[in-house]
């Protein structure tokens, strides 16, 4: 964009249409129709006689291409939790802000950016100490990856008292808040 401003300032490109310049005798009439830009992709034909608009369209094309590359690819990181109570657990994808809930068979999945080399999965349920599992998505050969929870040790080995929900502790909100699990 800055380049086109410089060219415009230097007078190398103008805001005049090419055919107007031809009429003024400033440009040689070569019989090509005097298009600044002519693109034909299948049935779609784009033509412009204005050099600045042509340059602008080229810049938009470059910008779109940069956006496509910048967006990056995503990959599905899936796992299976081998625990009889798997569906009670929550899996937090540390560092990529994702939460997944295993289904009845213990399977869970979450999309992560492809350029993330290490994902630390934290798996826990109410009353149980979370367990961490580092995962290198690019090195995994088989999906879903199996996760086996270790038997609890230490203070959390003693089951915590059941938690009775107190509805008064859940404040009402006027507007909807973003969900915990990304849609």
């Amino acid at each position, binding site marked *: *964009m*800055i380049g086109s*401003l410089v060219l*415009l*300032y230097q*007078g190398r490109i*103008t*805001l005049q249409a090419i055919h107007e310049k031809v009429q003024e005798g400033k440009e040689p009439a070569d019989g090509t129709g005097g298009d600044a830009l002519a693109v034909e992709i299948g049935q779609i034909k784009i033509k412009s006689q204005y050099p600045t608009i042509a340059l602008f369209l080229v810049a938009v094309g470059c910008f779109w291409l940069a956006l496509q590359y910048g967006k990056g690819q995503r990959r599905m990181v899936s796992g299976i939790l081998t625990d009889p109570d798997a569906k*009670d*657990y*929550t899996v*937090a994808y*540390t*560092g990529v*802000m994702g*939460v997944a*809930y295993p289904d009845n068979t213990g399977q869970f999945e979450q999309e992560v950016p492809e350029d993330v080399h290490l994902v630390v999965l*934290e798996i*826990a*349920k*109410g*009353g*149980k*100490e*979370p367990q961490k599992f580092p995962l290198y998505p690019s090195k995994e050969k088989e999906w879903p990856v199996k996760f086996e929870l270790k038997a609890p040790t*230490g*203070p*959390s080995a003693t089951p*915590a*008292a059941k*938690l*009775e*929900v*107190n509805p008064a*502790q*859940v*404040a009402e*909100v006027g*507007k*909807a*808040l*973003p969900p*915990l699990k990304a849609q």
Partner: protein
Amino acid sequence: MNNHWRVVVRVGLALVLGFGAIRSTDAAGMQVLTLSGTVTNSSGQSLPGCLLSVVSELGRSAPVFTDGKGSFSLEASLPPDASSKLFLEIYWNRTLVFRQPLASLAIASATPNNRGSPQGATWQGLLSDGGTVVLQPIKLGK
């Protein structure tokens, strides 16, 4: 040539103002609040495995679990718009068991980013400038 100059000046001005607006939004939105504390049940037993997250209409912090002792530490980026209310949410498995405005929680100790702030370690100062807050134990349930 006059027309050319006008176009150049207008486009240049638009670019400068546009980039300026983006930069100021970034700078204002970068304040971070670090929260830590413990979660217990009504009888004072620590609760491991609770999932905590700070949420507002604009977004949500990365959720974290309480550890084996019921302790947690989480970071939340403060929205540039101070009027958007922040809540602390706690999930027990998939059930939301606690949601209260951040500013209503009792502070055990706090270090605001802006130590010279006349507000000191109050929620008002912490929510505008960021800082580190240790909350008093959060009791869940009846």
